[in-house]
């Protein structure tokens, strides 16, 4: 089960998000405690999809290099069509929270499947609305899961970077 304490950072673009992931890993944060979510960028000129080669998932699309690298770094990968948001790509333990939310039919009233997954990891409703809006506006969410001390340390690291917003959510 994903720990119900988190530090959520919002980034304007995938380069900033990827840099933040690498920064956290360099500071000793575990890959199993990092998730990232963003909109799979869609244009008619860019077919989008994913496939499996051996033990690695590969992303096929305009941001293939970004998601391919992250899927290599983080545990878990998912690619969903979410009503109201479009294609949403996720890496990390948030994937299992999303699948649990979908399989358990625990989609909370008014939320998308992604919102339900965020709710299941202890993020309150008003923040979820903001995070869904951020995803819709092509921003990226980086989520650090952990105990209170770990998420506070993550905040220290992320607040010093390019994040548009960094919030701690404690259960």
């Amino acid at each position: 089960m994903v720990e119900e304490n988190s530090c959520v950072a919002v980034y304007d673009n995938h380069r900033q998000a990827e840099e933040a992931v690498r920064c956290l890993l360099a500071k000793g944060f575990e890959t199993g405690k990092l998730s990232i979510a963003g909109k799979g960028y869609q244009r008619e000129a860019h077919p989008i999809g994913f496939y499996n080669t051996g033990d690695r998932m590969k992303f096929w699309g305009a941001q293939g290099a970004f998601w391919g690298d992250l899927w290599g770094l983080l545990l878990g990968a998912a690619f969903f069509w979410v009503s109201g948001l479009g294609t949403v790509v996720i890496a990390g333990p948030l994937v299992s929270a999303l699948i649990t939310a979908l399989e358990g039919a625990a989609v909370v009233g008014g939320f998308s499947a992604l919102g339900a997954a965020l709710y299941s990891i202890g993020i309150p409703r008003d923040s979820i609305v903001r995070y869904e809006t951020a995803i819709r506006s092509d921003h990226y969410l980086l989520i650090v899961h952990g105990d209170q001390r770990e998420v506070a340390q993550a905040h220290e690291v992320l607040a010093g970077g390019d994040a548009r917003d960094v919030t701690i959510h404690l259960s």
Partner: protein
Amino acid sequence: MNPASAFFEESARCLKQSSLFSGLVASAIEDIVTRCRRETWKRRRQLPMEETWQRFHILLSGRVRLSRSNPESGRMITLFLLGPGEPFCIFSLLDGKAHEVMLETLDDVTLLSLPMSEARLWLDEHPEFNRKLLPYLGEQMCSLAGLASDLALHDTETRLARLILRHVDANTTDQHATPRLINDLSHEFLAEMIGSVRVVVNRQLQHWKQEGIVDAHRGHLEVEALQELARRAEEQPHKALA
């Protein structure tokens, strides 16, 4: 908090609307919000002050209770019930020490938090805040003095009436009023605010309900006869609020 954050403006607006921070220039409010980090805590989160006293907190939404308990008897007394715009760990801000108090969130809360050293630095840079802080501290001291004297001098009916009156808008002239912050609390919780127990509070509220003084049912409390409640509190409403 990054001023570009989607939460920055609403955090600043919440502070501007609070009695403690209202009247400060916008730049002073934006300065403290910039120094803070935003946190959310889930409902029913309990933590001792030893875990929180090194940071200064300002509530943006939801309620927090500060209480003390006796681990042997299990009895609890609520010292403060705080709402949006109110700070906590304020005594630690003043004396730099941890205090034996338990925090509990009554709702999902959103708050701003900053290290004590940053909060003191902000205070040094914005001495005009003291004009708001000192009266606020005076209110807090009065509230504690009121609680101590209520416990020592008054019976349960008077204490409960005074508690409700303290949470009624001082300017209301209507006989009907909805108490602020406490109107949806359980009878057990109300009992812990006046040093009593649930059955006694429940019996008193039922008695007042029959007399038409309050309307109390599960999770909801309304005052129906404010003047009569003030009489039961043995003082005028405005005195009780002082």
